[in-house]
C-alpha cells in the first residue's frame, strides 16, 4: 500500500505523457513516448549493452569511492582529533570543496587521458569532501562531548577509540559515506559524458549524436534507479550500524 502510494505520482505522469504523445502534442524526436522508451529499454537490456555500461559506471564509482573513503576517513578523523591536523587540512579543504567535480575534468583528462582513470579521479574528488568533513565533525563532536567522561573513568586509549570515539562518530561518518557515494555517482556520469568510451554517461552522450532520444532516456532512468538503490543500501547500513541513534542525524538533515 505504501509503495503504491509512492508509485502513484509516477503512474500519473506516465499516463499523461503517453496521452500527449498519442495526441501528437509532443515531438517524438525530442520526447518519445513512455511506450517507446520501454521498448528501447527492453532492446538494450536484451543485447546486454545497458548492463555493460551500468557495470562500467558502477565499477568506476566504487573504485573512486573506496579511495575517497580511505583518505577521507583517515584525514577527517585525524583532523577531528588533533588541532595540528585540522589547522593544516581544513583551510585547504574549505578552499577546494566549492570547486565542482566537473571543473576538474579538463585537468583529469590532461593528466590521465581518456577511459577509467580520469573517471576514478573525478569520483574521488566528488566523494572525498563530504566523507572528510563528516568524519572530521563526527570525531570532533564525540571527542568534545564524550572524551571527558571516558577519561574520568580512566579508560585507556584503546577503549577510548573502540568504545567512545569510533561508535560516537559512526552515524556521522556513515552519513558522510552515503552523501559521498551519491556525489560520486553524479560525478562519474559527468566524467563519462566527456572523458570515456563506455559507461552510462558515455552511452547517453553517444545516443544524442545518433539522435536516439529514447535510449538517452533509458540511460537517464537507469542512472536514477542505480543512484536510488545505492542510497537505500547505504541507509540500510546506517540503520544497522548505529543502534539507538542513526535517526537523530537523518532527522537533522
Amino acid at each position, binding site marked *: 500500500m505504501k509503495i503504491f502510494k509512492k508509485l502513484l505520482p509516477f503512474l500519473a505522469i506516465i499516463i499523461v505523457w503517453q496521452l500527449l504523445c498519442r495526441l501528437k502534442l509532443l515531438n517524438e524526436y525530442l520526447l518519445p513516448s513512455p511506450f517507446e522508451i520501454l521498448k528501447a529499454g527492453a532492446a538494450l537490456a536484451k543485447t546486454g549493452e545497458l548492463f555493460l555500461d551500468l557495470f562500467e559506471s558502477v565499477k568506476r564509482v566504487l573504485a573512486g569511492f573506496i579511495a575517497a573513503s580511505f583518505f577521507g576517513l583517515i584525514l577527517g578523523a585525524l583532523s577531528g582529533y588533533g588541532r595540528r591536523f585540522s589547522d593544516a587540512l581544513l583551510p585547504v579543504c574549505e578552499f577546494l570543496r566549492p570547486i565542482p567535480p566537473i571543473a576538474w575534468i579538463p585537468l583529469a583528462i590532461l593528466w590521465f587521458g581518456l577511459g577509467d582513470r580520469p573517471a576514478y579521479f573525478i569520483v574521488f574528488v566528488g566523494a572525498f569532501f563530504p566523507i572528510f568533513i563528516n568524519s572530521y565533525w563526527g570525531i570532533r563532536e564525540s571527542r568534545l*562531548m*564524550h572524551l*571527558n*567522561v*571516558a*577519561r*574520568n*573513568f*580512566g*579508560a*585507556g586509549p584503546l*577503549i577510548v577509540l573502540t*568504545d*567512545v570515539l569510533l*561508535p*560516537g562518530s*559512526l552515524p556521522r561518518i556513515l552519513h558522510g559515506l552515503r552523501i559521498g557515494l551519491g556525489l560520486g555517482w553524479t560525478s562519474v556520469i559527468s566524467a563519462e559524458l566527456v572523458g570515456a568510451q563506455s559507461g552510462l554517461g558515455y552511452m547517453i552522450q553517444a545516443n544524442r549524436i545518433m539522435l536516439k532520444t529514447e535510449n538517452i532516456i533509458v540511460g537517464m532512468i537507469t542512472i536514477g534507479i542505480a543512484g536510488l538503490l545505492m542510497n537505500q543500501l547505504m541507509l540500510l547500513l546506517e540503520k544497522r550500524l*548505529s*543502534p*539507538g*541513534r542513526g*535517526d*537523530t542525524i537523518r532527522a537533522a538533515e
Partner: protein
Amino acid sequence: MIRLTKVCKTYGDPSEGGARAALSAVSFEIKKGEFFSVLGPSGCGKTTLINIIAGFVKPEAGEVLFDGKPVRGPWRDRIVVFQEHNLFDWKTVLSNVAFGLKAKGMPAAERGRTAREFIELVHLSGFENVYPSSLSGGMKQRAALARAMAVDPGCILMDEPLGSLDSQMREKLQLEIMALWEKTKKTILMVTHDIEEAVFLSDRVALMSKAPGRIKQIVPIDIPRPRDASVKASAGFQALKHELSEKIMADS
C-alpha cells in the same frame, strides 16, 4: 577528603586584556561521607570548580588535595555526573553502567553482574537493554548515577545534575539522590543554582558569588536526618531557604 586551598583560575588570554577571573582564592574542605553543595548564580564558576576537582582543568594557583594527595588529572576516584551528555547514546543502559568497570579491566561476566546490581539500585531494572534515546531525562540521570556508583569512587561530583529536568522530576530525583547517598555513604559535592535543592540535600552549603567566583560563606544545614519531602514545608527549612536567598540576593 577534598581540600581546596586558595584555588584560582582565569579564563581568556591576559595578554589580550580579555582575562576573566572564574575562581578567586577558593578554599574549603569536604569531609568523608559529607553531602556538600556549592550554591551560586550561573556563571559564577561552579562548573570550573567541578572541572578542577575532577582534574579536567588545572588551577593557576592554589592546591587541590583529594585523600591527602594532590589532584593531577581525571581519575575514577572522582566521578562527575554532568548536567547533560552523560551517557553514550550508542550503548545500552547496561553497557553504559558497565563502562567504568570495563575501563577498570573487570571481566565481562562480573561487570554484567555488578552493573545489574547498580541498575537495580537506581530502579532501572527492566531497562538494561534500552538505548538512552528512549529514556526520559530523569531515567538518564539515574543511569548516569548508577554508572558513577558502580566504579566505587571516593566521591561523586555533580554538576547541576537535575538542571535539565522539569520541576516534578527534580523533586523525585532529589529523593532518589538522597536515598542513594544514605545507602552508599559516598562523599558528594553538588553544584547547583537551586536553593531548595541545596538545602534539602546537603549537610553544608557553600555560597558562591559571581565574577570573580569566590566562596562567601559556608552555611551548615542543621535539619535532622533522615529527611523526606515533608521537610520542605517545615518552618526550619523555610527559614534556612529564606536566609540563603537573602544572602544570594545581597550579592547581585
